[in-house]
């Protein structure tokens, strides 16, 4: 036994040998009852969730292909995490604000945002550059954990504005959701966000997608207790949900967001899921995990179980499923076309937007650079 390691237990599943979590739809596609959580979807809504899942996966696959073909610099795939993202994303109300990491393409899609929006970042054209207020969706954050503090501060602002239950009571009370990973849970920023949210009773939901890995490091490198249990130490509830179950992630997120907007403070949700692909297209997971582990998660696929459910309940037929495939293919093709035709950034734009009020230093540099480039045109070099 290595001296610096905790006593060995049996296998890497020791944190949660049989993880207990909220589940409403099991891998076989059967509805499961839960004493606290339920969903009440129409047939149409069940089909819509399925459509979201399939489209989100297809878009992700297309982006991975675009990276392989050299059209994107890098891609962070959400493969395997579709239910966690679609369930939580659809649970948000229009007035809610989301703070994503770099992997929340599915949440973005469910917010009704054009999936092309973050692709410029991954193509290296810009840093995303959308207006968070317009989309109620913050820019992607790459520095691990930082956004959890931003989300908490935003939620404190909602409190100050009296926009939670018991405030102006107008029915459009707001709440915030902060996405982060299991690895991020180790960062000081994330723990400070928990402290702040607890102390200020902020209307924020911390949504941790525990996909079991932070690049190569398994969950055991970040924690010796199930992540959701950490919430207790900060003074707010934590709940673990089957992250591959779109119904459960929807129900749990919906309840936590509504609690927050009604003035009941923060919640930590741990969506227990699995990163089926590489960390990003730059990563080689064969160096740190075995194929059988990946295969065991294949059986818990988030889309397959909804397919089974719809079929068994007679809510959808082959015609529906193939129309969804067609629609997904169309959306993906459209995405590809727009990536390929994305304009190159204007070289001079490198000098833009460092300050709202500009800077004489940058103005001088811009001028010098214009002259420098012109010198090539004049054949001075």
């Amino acid at each position, binding site marked *: 036994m290595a001296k610096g390691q905790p006593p060995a237990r049996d296998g890497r599943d020791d944190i949660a040998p049989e993880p207990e979590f909220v589940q409403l739809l099991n891998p076989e596609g059967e509805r499961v009852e839960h004493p606290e959580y339920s969903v009440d979807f129409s047939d149409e809504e069940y089909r819509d969730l399925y459509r979201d899942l399939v489209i989100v996966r297809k878009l992700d696959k297309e982006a991975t292909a675009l990276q392989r073909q050299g059209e994107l610099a890098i891609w962070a795939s959400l493969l395997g995490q579709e239910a966690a993202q679609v369930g939580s994303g659809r649970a948000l109300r229009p007035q809610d604000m989301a703070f994503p990491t770099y992997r929340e393409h599915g949440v973005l899609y469910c917010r009704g945002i054009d999936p092309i929006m973050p692709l410029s970042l991954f193509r290296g054209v810009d840093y995303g550059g959308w207006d968070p207020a317009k989309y109620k969706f913050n820019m992607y954050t*790459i520095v691990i954990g930082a956004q959890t503090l931003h989300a908490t501060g935003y939620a404190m602002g909602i409190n100050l504005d009296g926009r939670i239950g018991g405030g102006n009571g107008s029915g459009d009370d707001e709440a915030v959701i902060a996405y982060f990973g299991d690895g991020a849970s180790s960062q000081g920023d994330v723990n400070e966000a928990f402290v702040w949210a607890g102390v200020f009773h902020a209307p924020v939901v911390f949504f941790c997608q525990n996909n079991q890995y932070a690049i190569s490091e398994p969950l055991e490198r970040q924690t010796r207790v199930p992540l959701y249990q950490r919430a207790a130490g900060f003074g707010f509830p934590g709940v673990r949900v089957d992250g591959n179950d779109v119904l459960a992630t929807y129900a749990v997120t919906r309840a936590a967001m509504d609690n927050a907007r009604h003035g009941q403070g923060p919640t930590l949700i741990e969506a227990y899921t699995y990163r089926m692909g590489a960390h990003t297209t730059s990563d080689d997971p064969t160096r740190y995990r075995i194929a059988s582990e990946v295969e065991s998660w294949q059986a818990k696929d988030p889309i397959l179980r909804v397919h089974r459910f719809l079929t068994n309940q007679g809510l959808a037929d082959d015609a529906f499923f193939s129309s969804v495939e067609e629609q997904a293919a169309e959306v993906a093709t459209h995405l590809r076309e727009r990536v390929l035709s994305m304009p190159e950034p204007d070289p001079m734009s*490198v000098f833009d937007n460092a300050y709202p009020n500009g800077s004489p230093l940058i103005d001088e540099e811009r001028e010098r650079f214009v002259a420098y480039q012109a010198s090539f045109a004049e054949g001075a070099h």
Partner: protein
Amino acid sequence: MTGQAVTSAEKAATTLSIGKALNNGLRRAMEDDPKVLIMGEDVGKLGGVFRITDGLQKDFGEDRVIDTPLAESGIVGTAIGLALRGYRPVCEIQFDGFVYPAYDQIVSQVAKFHYRSRGQVRLPIVIRIPFGGGIGAVEHHSESPEAYFSHTAGLKVVSCANPNDAYWMIQQAIASDDPIIFMEPKRRYWEKGQVDTDGEPYPLHSARVLRPGTDATVVAYGPMVRVALDAAAAAVEDGRELEVIDLRSLSPLDLGPVYDSVRRTGRLVVVHEAPSNLGLGSEVAARVTEKCFYSLEAPVLRVTGFNVPYPAARLEEEYLPDLDRVLDAVDRSFGW
């Protein structure tokens, strides 16, 4: 270096990439001193995202090559505790842009323990940071934060630019009792060169003339050394002989060779990727002006990244100093 038999793979003058030279240097430091530890994110099984620690956990075990939780302040803060306990931690920061969560521990703690303890505590910590752009990455993966650390008393800062220096400087940094920020030119990791594993290493905190010349002096470090050398090769066509100096040590600066050079050439161009404003080039320019004022034929010129946040990948070609911009500065120096 103590008694380790030199393996055949390590025989004098092998050709290695900078990345592999660092890997071999780390290995040799670990063999030489059982107190040397490696710690960081993904440094174990994965061997680091750039594979600089590849194979080390397999050979030295999980106690000495430690995959840490994902928290940079934790990495450096616990390295301090381990150093207090007699270990020599080598911390890997995964990318330049992710060192900032550890900034407080580095600047307020690592840098000041020796001073606060009136010289009684030494923290022989090395913090390795792959830095600089040119790899087409997304944001926070291409920054040049060396000036922040060079500005801080109590820290030493070095940067290697070729495989031989990579191999030796990492070992010298680990052997030193000074805390050292070790800046690795990530876009040059794959560049190969001769490594003399038996030779006498060049002193760690010394600048080095890499190419002698008589007409102008070009000073660079890290990833820009290659650009300076390429510019010097191209300048021959214009009938100019440029002297190229690799600073190697950014704090303390070793400007003796630069003064000597400028007294001969009368012209100096300093090149770095970091923005010009209060960058290393400013310090070099000020000191050269103080020491060589009457030898200068033109003001010291800087070729640097712009004073903006590091831009998106498709703009980095504009941002990064290249051969043309160095030659343009040399032209301007001559046109003064």
